């Protein structure tokens, strides 16, 4: 005859196993594990800082005037871009400034319909090892002063769309 003395032990054992599993599940759920994929959180912060800075530069100081960014692009004024953008990005409360590096380009359409990209300014050259994020800001320019405009002055006098693209990274 089969002996049933072990039945209670077995049930107890299964219950204990379930309790252990539930505990482990709860503990693992509560712990955040930093995986390689989580680096996008830092990237997103950098993206938000950068696009906010560009949006601020693309806001007119007075009413319907041109924004500083539009003025800078129309005059190809890389020095002014460096000053304003660097101050907006890196100035912090306290004595130490932030160390965000950037490289800015402007893309526009030429008279023949091709798209050209010219550098605006950068805080230092890009060497290839940087982990950079990409942000951009659309603007409408009028009377743009670029080398390619000398051949087609009438084309550049009219209104055109341009795209300011910036790469941002921290050293």
């Amino acid at each position, binding site marked *: *005859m*089969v*002996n049933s*003395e*072990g039945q209670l*032990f*077995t049930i107890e*054992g299964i219950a*204990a*196993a379930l309790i*252990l*599993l539930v505990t*482990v*599940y709860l503990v*693992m759920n509560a712990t955040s*594990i930093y*995986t*390689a*994929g*989580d*680096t*996008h959180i830092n*990237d*997103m912060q950098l*993206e938000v800082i950068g*696009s906010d800075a560009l949006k601020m530069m693309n806001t007119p100081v007075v009413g319907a005037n041109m924004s500083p960014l539009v003025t800078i692009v129309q005059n190809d004024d890389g020095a002014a871009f460096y000053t304003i953008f660097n101050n907006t990005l890196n100035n912090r409360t306290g004595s130490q400034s932030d160390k965000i590096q950037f490289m800015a380009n402007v*893309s*526009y*359409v030429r008279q023949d*319909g091709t*798209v050209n*990209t010219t550098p605006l300014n950068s805080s230092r050259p890009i060497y290839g090892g940087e982990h950079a994020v990409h*942000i*951009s*800001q*659309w603007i*409408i320019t009028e009377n743009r002063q670029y080398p390619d405009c000398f051949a087609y002055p009438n084309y550049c*006098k*009219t*209104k*055109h*769309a*341009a*795209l300011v*693209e910036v790469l941002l990274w921290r050293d």
Partner: protein
Amino acid sequence: MARLNDDAQWIILMAFIISFSLFFLAIILNQSTVVGQTTSEAVSEFPKEDIRGVRNMVIQWNFLNDTYMNDKKNVQNDIKALALSRQDAAVDFSFTKDSTGNYTFVKIHYNNGVSAYNENWTFPS
């Protein structure tokens, strides 16, 4: 019949429990990397700022004057060309007036192959 010997029941049960726990832990550790990867991909693939930028430009474009130097046509062509070459997105937009002439409808289409955005923006004018 000989009496069944149940001396080792505890050892076997504990072995079961420990092996199940280890198995479960391994599954959780394995999944955690995948979760981080897929969320970050989903977040970085959605072109939130690009769509906002194009939408903002289309609305500005709607208020340009076409009688002077073809401003409206030029800017429309520029936006389409720049979005295609710099943001890998097909963009199209146009405006229509309703029959009463009181409303302007601006249709905005954005598609970069992964995410599509369509809007019918209405303006009272």
